[in-house]
Structures are given as structure tokens and as C-alpha cells.
């Protein structure tokens, strides 16, 4: 598992990565009530704002963690955004991405480094 400073997690799944946000992030955001996911097949560039999430409190964006192509999105999450609160690392995943430059993952944090970052 890899982590970004934007509180995303990436888990390898064959040649793609499953991406979600951490339980630390969902706790900070509060109850999610709306998620707008990108379209499957979209080519994205690292740091593009590709997902809109809204909690009861505010709207925020999720950035593309790497360059690549979106290969799947979690329709169940769009139907029930609270999945990101109840199961951040499981059923609450957001999208799958196929990196065009896997070396971009090299500088990401591991679990210990992420935990150190959030204190």
C-alpha cells in the first residue's frame, strides 16, 4: 500500500492501482454525502482534480495521484457515499488507475511514513 500527502491510498491490483482516501481523511471530512467520479477511459495527469467529494460540511477535490488512465470507478460509492466513511480501505474505494509512468509511485509514502505525517 502507498500513500500520498493528499491522504489517498493506492493498492496494487494486477497492473492497475485501486485508489481511495484514508480513514484519517474521511474522519476529518465528516460524513460524505456526494461523490462525483471520473468517466472510465479518461486519461488524467498527476494532480488533476478528478473526483469531487462533498461532506455535510464542505466540498473538496481528490487529485489524480499519478499520470494514467481510469480503468474503473466505484459506482456503489456514487450511490452510497457513506461507504467511504464506513470502509475507507475496502468498499469505499474511488477508482482504478493504470499508471503510464509507474516510477511516479516510487516517492510515495509507505504506511509508517503516512502515519508519521498525520501524527
Amino acid at each position, binding site marked *: 500500500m502507498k500513500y500520498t500527502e493528499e491522504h489517498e491510498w493506492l493498492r496494487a491490483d494486477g497492473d492497475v492501482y485501486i485508489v481511495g482516501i484514508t480513514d484519517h481523511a474521511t474522519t476529518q471530512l*465528516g460524513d460524505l*454525502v*456526494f461523490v462525483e467520479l471520473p468517466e472510465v477511459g479518461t486519461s488524467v495527469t498527476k494532480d488533476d482534480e478528478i473526483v469531487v467529494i462533498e461532506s455535510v460540511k464542505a466540498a473538496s477535490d481528490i487529485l489524480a495521484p499519478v499520470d494514467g488512465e481510469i480503468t474503473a470507478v466505484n459506482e456503489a460509492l456514487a450511490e452510497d457515499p457513506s461507504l467511504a466513511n464506513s470502509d475507507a480501505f475496502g468498499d469505499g474505494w474511488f477508482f482504478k488507475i493504470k499508471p503510464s509512468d509507474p516510477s511516479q509511485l516510487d516517492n510515495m509514502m509507505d504506511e509508517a511514513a503516512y502515519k508519521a505525517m498525520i501524527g
Partner: protein
Amino acid sequence: MSDLLHTPLHDLHRSLGARMVPFAGYEMPVQYSLGVMKEHLHTRTKAGLFDVSHMGQVVVSGESYADAALALESLVPVGILDLPQNRQRYGFITNDQGGIVDDLMLANRGDHVFVVANAACKAADIALMRATLEPDITVTELTDRALLALQGPAAEEVLAKMDPRVRDMAFMDVATLTLNGAVAWVSRSGYTGEDGFEISVPAGDATALAQALLDHPDVEAIGLGARDSLRLEAGLCLHGHDIDAETTPVEATLHWAIQKVRRSGGARAGGFPGADIVLGQLAAGARKRRVGLIPEGRAPMREGVVLFANVDDETPIGVITSGGFGPTVGGPVAMGYVPAAQAEVGTTIFGELRGKRQPLRVAKLPFTPANFKR
């Protein structure tokens, strides 16, 4: 946040694990461990305890209640003189343009008017009252009292265990009761759309009373986050957002708060700042109006979203002043201002969200039925 003021319940909020945020110069709890969604739903089904001690508590007194009430009517366009003893009324202070300087609760307490004002406005309200009404009238801010709100369908049962006389109170009644040993000024009112009570107690009694209320299994502490979503679903205005010095009571559809006696032809018609404008709008209608809005999609549309009559219009017709997710409604809700032509319930308009025009429907307020004990 060292320059922020604390309410008498500050330590209790900390001990309950509240997330504290700056609000109107105070450090206030935005949510507790339950989170905004569960706090909101708990208040609608059982009872929620809110700390609203940041609000201003002001005694306006003169030779008699009538003197104080009549004097206040020179700033406030509602009937205060004819308010029966131990009854409360919603009102507002207007400016010369008929704009709403602040909205208030006003109670007849026998020999004085008890006023509750918004935290962000209280200093200006008091300064205005003093400048306008003194020396005949005395304006005293009570800085040694806390203000709690207990809201929700279980509120009466919870409070009746401390003083059964609450059962005899109707919506907007006021009484002095003994709650947990404290002499409390209680009104049957609130700002959530639910039945409930607002409770003024000496600051030194506040924590013990709040703790005793929280000891009841039906009561949870509720933060400002849920207070905002509850009042939005209830169609209630938040000053500085849905109403302000630029909006009149008629535009804000608060005309119901202006009794006949203060309207044209009434015994005490006008006589408040901006009366010509407000009374003119009461007769002829206002150009724009506050309406309820339900976004047709699932995306919340928040304050500041610009509104258009048609999907491809260039000129905006209005703006959303409050909006978000309504936990009881189960979807997004909003309020905003639109021209009279678009204000009919059922009209479809468009809001620009992240560069895209999304439809909204003009809807009846409140979004959730009021549960007041009339």
C-alpha cells in the same frame, strides 16, 4: 485561538471531545464525536443540547414594560407593546433602507424586554439601542449568563424531570423555572424546527445543568454543524447569510413577523427605520424573494452558487444564501433569492456548479415539517 472568547461550557466541550472552531469571535464546538449527520438525526428523533451562550442576552428596561417596549418599537417593526407577559416573539432591527441589521427574540418579562441577539451582531445592536433609547431606557447586556438550547421531540420529557411546569408551556411561552437547582429563564422555542426550549442560567450553574441534561439517555451534545443543517431544513434564516443589512423582511419572506398593528392602517403603523420601504413592499410586493430550492441532482449547492432562469442565460437572477445536505430530507436543500417571476413553487431554475448548469426546483419552506407545541 487564544484571542477567541470562551463560553461557560468551554471546558465541558473539550471534555466531550468536541472539535472547536472560531465562530463570531468565540471558540465554539462545530461537532462532537457523533459527527454532524448523527447529531442532526438525533435532534430530530430524540433531543439535542446546544451551547448558544455566544448569543447576546440583553435586558431593555424603563419606567415600565410599556416604556421599554414602545422605545424598542422605534427600532423593531414588530408588536412588542402588545406582547402578553411571559410571551416571546421573533423580530429584527431594521436600517433606513429597510435592511435587517439583526434578527432577535423579544420577550415580555413583566418589567422589561428580554432580548436575545446574534453573537456577531450583539455589540452593534447594543450600541445602537443605547445611542437611540438612552437615557430614558436602560440597555444592559447580561455577560454572566449562559444560554443552552434543548431541542427535539424528547426535550419536554427530559426537562419535565427537572421541573414539571415545562409541560404547561406552549410554543413561545417564557417562564422562570428551577432546573437542577439553578434559577432558569426558559422559553419554549429554538432554531431547529423542533419542539424545544432555550434556557438562560447563571454562568456558574451552566456546566452542572448541561451535564445533568446530558446524563439523560435521550440527550446528546450537538455542535454548530448540525445546528446549521437543522435550521436550514426548517427554512430558518441565518443572519449574515440569508438575511443581512441589504435584504428587507419582505424580500426575506419574514413579513409574517410584522403584526397588523405595525403595518399601514395599524394603531402603531411604521415608526421604525426604513418603514416607508418595508410598508411599501408589504403593499406592492418585493422585487426579489427568498425561496426554498431543491437541487434535482445529488450534488449539494452551497452558499454563493449563482442562479439563472434558463440553462444558457448569461445574466444571473440570484444567488444561493444557504445550502447543503439535509440529513432528514436525505438530499441537498438550499435557500436563495430569486425575482418574483421565478419565485413560484415548482419553478425550475439553474445553478452554476463547477462550471456546469444544474437544475433546481423552487420548493415550499420548511423542507421538514415544524414540530412546535402550539
